[in-house]
């Protein structure tokens, strides 16, 4: 038997990242680093009011100011039929306001000038006359009798209701509730927060009058989809649009929507004939771009006297802002929320959802939410812990009693999902063991006797990612496949181009490793490119943890396709029959004669110099992968907290996070993703909030109000893993990027609720700030 070659970068190896070099040297090519000859700068004027009629927009003074090339208003955009644009949820959104402004921060006008300083100076000189209208700032207000009508621009819109949506079975769920021994209810609010990547959104639009081509640099997580949208919205022929998504400084769903600024900059470039750059500042980012969550949820869990879950009923009211622009698959209105039965074998469930317009920024699907799975997971994990506390059963035991069992997979849930694989008991046991749960529980009891306020929270989430199978998943009608195109050069190096777009997830390394595994070319020799729509195969982009499940699968498939061709070439070179060849790591050898072998590099050269008759030259291919199903990563997170009785401050003493995302391609990168998501979950649980006062003024539109945790507050994370491969994915891999943001908020909050349970506290809505904890303690007579 031939000695196995050690190949650097195969699946499972934590090789260092190939893309690091440019970032470490400060040579990343982010959007704002791009400078083109003749480039102009755009600044957007935004509405200070949440809801107001526009009486007049006076740009005369601004137009005369130094360096100003153009001032664009809604009226001008309307002349070009660009004042409104379609959203990803089949609604319309104002590009520049014409009749009314509908949220504080909405785009009203834009100044294009030689420098950004001059553009902002001129922006200050635009005078807008508003007639203020009452602001609607919640679904409750939106549906109230006599509420102001926000979307009076829509012909058939008589109120502020957007959609009604249901999943599961009303009848069987009702029947189960009627027979239940106990029903536990939780009403909870998942507040509006924001992904806030370190880099804000931006565009450099270069519509070249000489060539007719539009080269658009854009912070885009989905460049091809955006190209198609631009073609439809701006009426530019799609072959003349080239979208280049350069290095992106974090996405988290913030860079999926098409923002008005993109459209205005492109229109401006078209009209002026020079490149136009628009980069939003942080306030614009927080006040107007795709926020996350804002779901008011009520969950009822029916259990029998033995603690077995019988049924789940959930209603949610969604606050969608002024335009329905959720970036989600079109067949759903509440994303994948109906995964809400989570890790539990619940025979029947019924979900109802209603969406409402409010005078706030549009959005809702963002911030590592897996299309609303964050909301669903939060609800079920909080409800389950509350139920356990109410029933007097240990949180972990109650979960284990009701977990879907390993032998039940593939598991059909009460709302129609087919979970591919899982072993929830094992992940739970690993987490409890790593935490030292039994001893810690005793320790909690001891500390409580001394008057300390301390608790342990658990969350066992099941995620659903990898959108998705074309018949069920599309965005604006474009099915959610994804793609990989692989080309091997004569010297045995390779170029891999994909339809996804990394914003820091390490695609240049991870996907190279798939080629290494399948085709034996070392990861160092595989160049991965994404983001240029002229060269990359069509894909739906990177968000909702879909890259590994879909484009990763495509990479495996195309690599195997090339390996099939390589086998034929090897047979030709070795003068053997194809069936007599074995593949091992990076070469084909003749069965029984291991030294009669050809490496992939030799085969690659032969593909250009010595191919069998009738075969096309080259060694390349493309795969468009339509996933047969979603993948279902899962895990158990456990958090220990100590609470300061004097101030209400919560300190996370420990957090153990056990994740199962199937086969891990690069464990180092997977762990990095988990660290990041656990930190975001921490921020969401304890400090992040975008809220509005009665006039609709946004509180949380800069980093002094919208709080991001620093290295001092952020806890240290202890990670564990189990591996339950996906049976349908070519590599057995599942997605993972969003698992920690999906699973951790409930774990953090459950720990606080567990700590306060002895005082009768059942719920504190996020963010669980010290004043709320203090109030709960004082109400229970606990003092320092």
């Amino acid at each position: 038997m031939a000695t196995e070659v050690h190949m650097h970068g195969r699946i499972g190896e934590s090789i260092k990242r190939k893309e690091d070099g440019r970032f470490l040297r400060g040579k990343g090519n982010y959007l704002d680093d791009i400078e083109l000859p003749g480039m102009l700068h755009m600044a957007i004027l935004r509405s200070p009011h949440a809801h107001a009629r526009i009486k007049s927009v006076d740009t005369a003074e601004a137009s005369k100011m130094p360096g100003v090339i153009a001032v664009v208003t809604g009226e001008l955009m309307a002349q070009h039929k660009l004042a409104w644009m379609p959203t990803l949820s089949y609604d319309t959104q104002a590009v520049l306001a014409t009749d009314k402004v509908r949220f504080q921060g909405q785009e009203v006008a834009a100044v294009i000038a030689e420098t950004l300083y001059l553009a902002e100076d001129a922006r200050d000189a635009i005078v807008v006359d508003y007639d203020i209208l009452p602001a609607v700032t919640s679904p409750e207000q939106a549906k109230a009798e006599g509420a102001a009508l926000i979307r009076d621009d829509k012909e058939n819109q008589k109120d502020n209701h957007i959609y009604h949506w249901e999943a599961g079975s009303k009848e069987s769920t009702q029947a189960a509730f009627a027979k239940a021994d106990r029903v536990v209810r939780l009403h909870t609010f998942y507040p509006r927060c924001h992904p806030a990547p370190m880099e804000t959104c931006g565009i450099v639009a270069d519509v070249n009058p000489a060539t007719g081509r539009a080269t658009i640099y854009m912070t885009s997580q989905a460049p091809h989809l955006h190209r198609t949208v631009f073609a439809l919205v701006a009426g530019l022929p799609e072959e003349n649009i080239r979208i280049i998504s350069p290095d992106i400084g974090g996405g988290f769903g913030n860079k999926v929507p098409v923002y008005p600024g993109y459209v205005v900059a492109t229109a401006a470039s078209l009209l002026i004939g020079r490149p136009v750059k628009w980069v939003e500042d942080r306030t614009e980012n927080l006040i107007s771009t795709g926020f996350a969550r804002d779901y008011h949820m009520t969950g009822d869990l029916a259990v029998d006297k033995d603690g077995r879950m019988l049924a789940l009923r959930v209603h949610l009211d969604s606050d969608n802002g002024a335009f329905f622009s959720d970036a989600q698959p079109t067949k759903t209105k509440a994303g994948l929320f109906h995964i809400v039965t989570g890790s539990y074998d619940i025979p029947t469930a019924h979900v109802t959802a209603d969406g409402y317009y409010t005078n706030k920024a549009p959005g809702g699907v963002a911030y590592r939410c897996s299309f609303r799975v964050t909301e669903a997971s939060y609800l079920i994990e909080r409800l389950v812990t509350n139920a356990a506390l109410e029933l007097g059963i240990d949180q972990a035991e109650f979960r284990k009693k009701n977990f879907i069992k390993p032998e039940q997979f593939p598991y059909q849930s009460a709302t129609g999902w087919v979970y591919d694989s899982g072993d929830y008991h094992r992940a739970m046991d690993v987490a409890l063991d790593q935490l030292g749960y039994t001893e810690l529980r005793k320790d909690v009891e001891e500390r409580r006797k001394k008057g300390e306020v301390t608790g342990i929270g658990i969350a066992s989430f099941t995620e659903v990612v990898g959108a998705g199978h074309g018949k069920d998943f599309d965005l604006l009608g474009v099915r959610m496949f994804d793609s990989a195109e692989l080309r091997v050069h004569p010297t045995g190096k390779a170029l891999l181009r994909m339809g996804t777009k990394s914003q820091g997830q390490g695609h240049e390394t991870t996907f190279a490793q798939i080629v290494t595994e399948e085709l034996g070319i070392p990861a160092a020799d595989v160049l991965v490119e994404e983001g240029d729509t002229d060269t990359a195969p069509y894909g739906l982009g990177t968000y909702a943890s879909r890259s590994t499940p879909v484009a990763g699968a495509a990479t495996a498939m195309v690599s195997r396709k090339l390996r099939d061709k390589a086998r034929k070439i090897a047979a030709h070179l070795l003068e053997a029959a194809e069936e007599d060849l074995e593949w091992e790591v990076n070469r084909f050898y003749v069965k029984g004669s291991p030294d009669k072998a050809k490496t992939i590099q030799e085969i690659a050269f032969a593909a250009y110099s010595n191919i069998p008759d009738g075969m096309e030259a080259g060694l390349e291919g493309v795969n468009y992968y339509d996933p047969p199903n979603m993948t279902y990563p899962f895990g158990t997170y456990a958090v220990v907290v100590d609470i300061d009785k004097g101030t209400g401050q919560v300190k996370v003493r420990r957090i153990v996070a056990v994740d199962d995302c199937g086969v891990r391609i690069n464990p180092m990168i997977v762990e990095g993703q988990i660290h990041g998501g656990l930190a975001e979950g921490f921020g969401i649980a304890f400090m992040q909030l975008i809220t509005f006062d009665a006039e609709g003024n946004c509180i949380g539109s800069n980093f002094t109000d919208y709080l991001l945790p620093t290295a001092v507050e952020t806890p240290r994370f202890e990670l564990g893993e189990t591996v339950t491969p996906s049976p349908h994915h070519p590599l057995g891999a599942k997605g993972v990027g969003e698992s920690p943001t999906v699973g951790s908020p409930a774990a953090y909050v459950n720990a606080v609720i567990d700590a306060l349970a002895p005082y009768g506290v059942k719920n504190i809505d996020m963010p669980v700030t010290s004043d709320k904890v203090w109030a709960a303690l004082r109400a229970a007579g606990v003092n320092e």
Partner: protein
Amino acid sequence: MFPAAFDYRAPTTLDEALSVLKQHGDEAKVMAGGQSLIPLLKLRFSRPELVVDIARIPGLNGIERDDGHVAIGALARHVDIERSKELAASAPMLQEAAHWIADPLVRNRGTLAGSICHADPAGDWGSVILAMHADVVARSASGTRVIHASDFFKGPFETAIKPNEVVTEIRIPVAMGRNGGAYLKLERKVGDFATVAVAVHVRLDGDRIETAGIGLTAVGPTNIQATEAERSLHGKEPTDKVIADAARLAAEAAEPKEDVRGSAAYKKDVVRVFVQRGLKTAVARAKEGRR
């Protein structure tokens, strides 16, 4: 995100600075580290016609013992205070407070003088100079004034400093005998302004408290000196009850507003808890010789 246009002068002597302020004080803003002023300029909340940068004036960045006080120069940065051996020996409470200000990057530029002149009621130094019964020295082209800390703060972002004046130093009295202090701050995260903070300092005479200083941050239109609470401690043995009573009085002196950080009741209670904890710590430090 950028300032509106302004003129800029960077005098290299104090006299030059004072002469400029004499002429243009009303339209000018004095800048040392710029960590409070520049953010306001960028948001265009402040639009002075002239910025007078005093950072190039020599001799203003010292932290020196002089007679019965430590003189902290106008250009002494928060980080200089954090690292000062002199203050470690004579007034370590200032170092505890410095550690809590903003974040490490801001502390490399911002100054104590600039901070108190900015007079944000959520600023930490204001409470420290109140608790330490400090003096502020201000100079103009016409002469020098010494302003006691308790006369310094007039309202939110308003001080006794006139447009033609520059603060040149802050004098922290150095106590003889056993003394100790503490600075406690509740912030939602590093870099946030205080939800509540308290500065506490005590001087012991034998077993009793001779004098006390208590300054409160972020619970009123200015930093607040809790004078009644201070008086309640004079001449008393620092028992749990005495301390608890003083803490209650301090809470009563606070006038916090309800906002995203919490209700007024919450903030008052944190004042109480912090003054209680702070006094215990200050007394313990005084007793063990650590100040």
